[in-house]
């Protein structure tokens, strides 16, 4: 053998080395292919079918953009596009102003209870988006407590939608802006002060530029949420049509699947745009804070702190009164005539909207999603991030994993109908089962979880795989013995995120449930449709309670985990 290698030395080698793949590499390749297939089936293929559908007539013949032309000829439909833009823009402006003030108070003032206020602002994440709508009915509806505050305007319409969407979008905006404002360098402020800069000028030249990417990102996220949300306008929209309710009506009411697909694609447009902007903006935000920056320490400024405290209290009152009203509404015997408190509305067997079965369905679905989701997401992220095989396949899988962030739930749900209900699809057997709800929900919330997993994996030493290969330990053993334990907090995060979203989601699954798999969130929508707002409130409250319990459980487990692993995680 030495002779051969010496002989090659005589002929300057041009023979390209083709690395031999060991058994492990083949296992990894197989898993990557499986991951890519999964992402194709769960995300890309359904969306492709949706695209096709928008260019077909009722008989399935290709008619190009005729459906789009028909859409824009229909003044009622164009009106709802205009309506959607209006409420989304107003929501964005109000939410960003509130969220910025709130985030500023939390990160840059010395007011007490900052962590408490922050938790309050995140409460809406635990609720299905129809809950603020229900609460607004009680607060400002025809028999609402504060109806007179609207000076004769109706809550059923843009006003109600905007208030509901602000509630729904607030935590998302607060989280993004808090992150942006936290990344501040104390030394910039010290430099500005040593140059005797006026506070307002410091704010304009240091604070705002420092978080401008966060603001842009938050604005796009809020706009997309408000543009595509279904729960709030469904409950409180009244005669004010928006795209999300249009899709629902076209598909569920009129069985006009082609027009549903067209509206679905319109819903997709701003989401895709905001997704692209967000990606660009996030890349820039990263470089802002150098490793040597000194973290900002807020100083006492009595006047500003007072304003901050007032704002925090107001926002908290806003959030808590909406949640509180929904809970209160669920406990009232017969609004507004008999205000006796009762738990009767929590007896799901009465009222016929789905019964206790819908609660069990929701719990089973959310548990399955919380088990399967993290396994698939974390395993997939590991393959993408830590293996070396087939770079193009890993990049493709990563790209596919990013798509769901840009796809509103209604659009994904609609796409699933087209794809899984298509005659001849071998996967059609999961249609109208619990499985399609689980698959859809795992896919729907894939991106955030994937990014969480990738971030966690990036923090793990890059050479673990190389070391275990040199020790002849197969990669899957090291994955199980080292990578998973090290990343357990992130995996727990992902599981909780999945569970809560599976409990609260309405938009995607509303197209996909069957009578046997009706979920609690959908039962709430149907119950409200049937005019039983109080029972819908009870269901919404149940979802909040279960989500909150899941969240508290996660915190407890995370704390226990920290204590148990403190020895090796270090201080």
């Amino acid at each position, binding site marked *: *053998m*030495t002779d*051969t*290698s*010496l002989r*090659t*030395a005589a002929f*300057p*080698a*041009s*023979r*390209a*080395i*083709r*690395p*031999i*793949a*060991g058994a*492990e*590499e083949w296992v990894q390749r197989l898993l990557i292919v499986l991951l890519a297939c999964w992402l194709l089936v769960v995300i890309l293929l359904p969306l492709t079918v949706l695209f096709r559908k928008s260019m077909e007539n009722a008989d399935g013949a290709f008619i190009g953009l005729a459906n789009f032309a028909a859409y824009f000829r229909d003044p009622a439909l164009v009106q709802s596009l205009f309506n959607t833009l209006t409420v989304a823009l107003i929501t964005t402006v109000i939410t960003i102003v509130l969220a910025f003030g709130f985030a500023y108070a939390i990160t840059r003032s010395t007011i007490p209870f900052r962590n408490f206020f922050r938790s309050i602002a995140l409460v809406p994440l635990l609720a299905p988006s129809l809950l603020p709508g229900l609460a607004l009915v009680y607060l400002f509806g025809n028999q609402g407590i504060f109806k007179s505050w609207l000076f004769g305007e109706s809550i059923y319409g843009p006003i109600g939608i905007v208030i509901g969407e602000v509630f729904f979008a607030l935590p998302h905006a607060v989280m993004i802006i808090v992150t942006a404002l936290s990344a501040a360098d104390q030394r910039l402020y010290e430099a500005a002060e040593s140059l005797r800069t006026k506070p307002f000028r410091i704010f304009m030249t240091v604070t705002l530029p420092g978080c401008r990417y966060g603001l842009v990102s938050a604005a796009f996220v809020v706009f997309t949420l408000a543009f595509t949300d279904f729960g709030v306008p469904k409950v409180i929209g009244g005669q004010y049509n928006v795209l999300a309710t249009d899709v629902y009506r076209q598909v569920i009411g009129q069985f006009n699947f082609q027009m549903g697909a067209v509206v679905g694609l319109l819903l997709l447009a701003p989401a895709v745009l905001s997704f692209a902007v967000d990606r660009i903006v996030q890349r820039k935000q990263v470089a802002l804070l150098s490793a040597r920056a000194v973290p900002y320490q807020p100083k006492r400024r009595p006047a500003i702190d007072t304003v901050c405290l007032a704002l925090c209290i107001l926002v908290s009152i806003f959030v808590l009164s909406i949640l509180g009203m929904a809970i209160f509404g669920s406990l009232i015997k017969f609004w507004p005539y008999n205000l006796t408190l009762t738990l009767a509305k929590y007896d799901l067997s009465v009222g016929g909207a789905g019964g206790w079965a819908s609660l069990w369905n929701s719990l089973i679905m959310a548990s399955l999603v919380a088990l399967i989701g993290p396994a698939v997401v974390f395993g997939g992220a590991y393959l993408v991030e830590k293996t070396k095989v087939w770079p193009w396949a890993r990049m493709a899988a990563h790209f596919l994993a990013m798509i769901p962030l840009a796809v509103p739930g209604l659009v994904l749900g609609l796409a699933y109908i087209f794809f899984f209900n298509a005659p001849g699809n071998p996967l059609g057997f999961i249609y109208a089962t619990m499985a399609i709800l689980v698959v859809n929900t795992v896919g729907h919330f894939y991106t955030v979880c994937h990014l969480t997993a990738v971030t966690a994996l990036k923090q793990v*030493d*890059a*050479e*673990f795989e*190389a*070391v*275990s*290969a*040199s*020790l*002849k*330990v*197969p990669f899957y*053993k*090291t994955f199980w*013995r*080292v990578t998973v*334990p*090290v990343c357990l907090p992130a995996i727990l995060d992902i599981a909780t995120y999945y569970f809560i979203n599976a409990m609260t989601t309405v938009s995607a699954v509303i197209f996909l449930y069957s009578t046997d798999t009706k979920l609690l969130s959908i039962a709430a929508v149907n119950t409200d449709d049937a005019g039983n707002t109080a029972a819908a409130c009870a269901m919404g409250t149940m979802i909040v309670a279960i989500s909150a319990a899941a969240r508290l459980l996660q915190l407890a487990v995370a704390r226990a985990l920290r204590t148990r*692993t403190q*020895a*090796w*995680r*270090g201080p």
Partner: protein
Amino acid sequence: MAVGNGRPYLSIRNVNKFFGGFQALKDVSLDVFPGEFVCFLGPSGCGKTTLLRAIAGLDIQDNGSIAQAGTDISALPPSRRDYGIVFQSYALFPNLTVAENIAYGLVNLGRDKAAIRARVAELVALVSLRGQESKYPAQLSGGQQQRVALARAIAMSPGLLLLDEPLSALDARVRINLRGELKHLQRRIGVTTIMVTHDQEEALAVADRIVVMNHGVIEQVGRPDEVYRNPATAFVADFVGHMNFLPATRGDSGVVRVGGVELRADLAGVTASSGGAITVCLRPEDVQVRGLQPQQPNVLQAEITSLEFLGAFCRAELRLGSAEDLGLAADFSINAMRDLDLRIGKMIPVALPPDRLRVFDAEGSAHG
């Protein structure tokens, strides 16, 4: 270690590696002999780590061959090669104890527990970590973590030990202690070892042979004293130790012209013709100031323009009398300073011994 006798343990032949359009390794060939401690030395980006990772199978070369113990391993995945490796980050498994980290590969072999325990105890003693077995890496100092990584790498008695900048994350003092222990340990177990480092002092201290690399090319292979005394290229001369570079022209018959002065020097390997530009190199410690003989060649008058006290010796900046702008650094012992009463502004005779002058063609100069 004996070099050059016997068959090489590792044979690298004409290895090339590209990253996109960048060629990280250019036709690299090298033999490593059994039991040798070899250092890959060079500035960052010189290809030393790339070569190590090619040997490990982590970034396999595009062409060229690598043979280990007579077997061509060029295309094998890492898991089918025979080596232990220590990374700069150590890559210790944070959730496993010291003992579990060291036993990580042994457990997978399915050895019985008593045998594993015995082997771990042996390794723990070898790297002087007795009593730390049940601690986690986060509870150890950097130096201790490095020892755990080393013990883990040699646990399976690999034929080859690969060390990728294993000491550079440590404090200077710990680093010096550990490199001595590393050398000692390597001698004791006799494993063929390759260490990547950018620290020339470290390479000089531990290596049996040094492989100096630059821009993906091996500039020189040799024993530490050879590389230091007899650098093959201007790059090596500059990178290893301190060196004076004097611009010069080639004169006739073994003479070089520096400034206005003619010096005798060994011109072997110089291709410039008479009158051609060359570079004359001399280490500061080779500038002779005591015991000059009357007939001695290459004696010049020099003025001391600055003195820097460096503890054991002084570094002087000299201006060679005949040329205004010709500077030369020279190291003088504290004794010489005192005995000769050396101070700034003093004119002194110095000798530039012909056998210590290294001459290179000017265009090969690594300056700038």
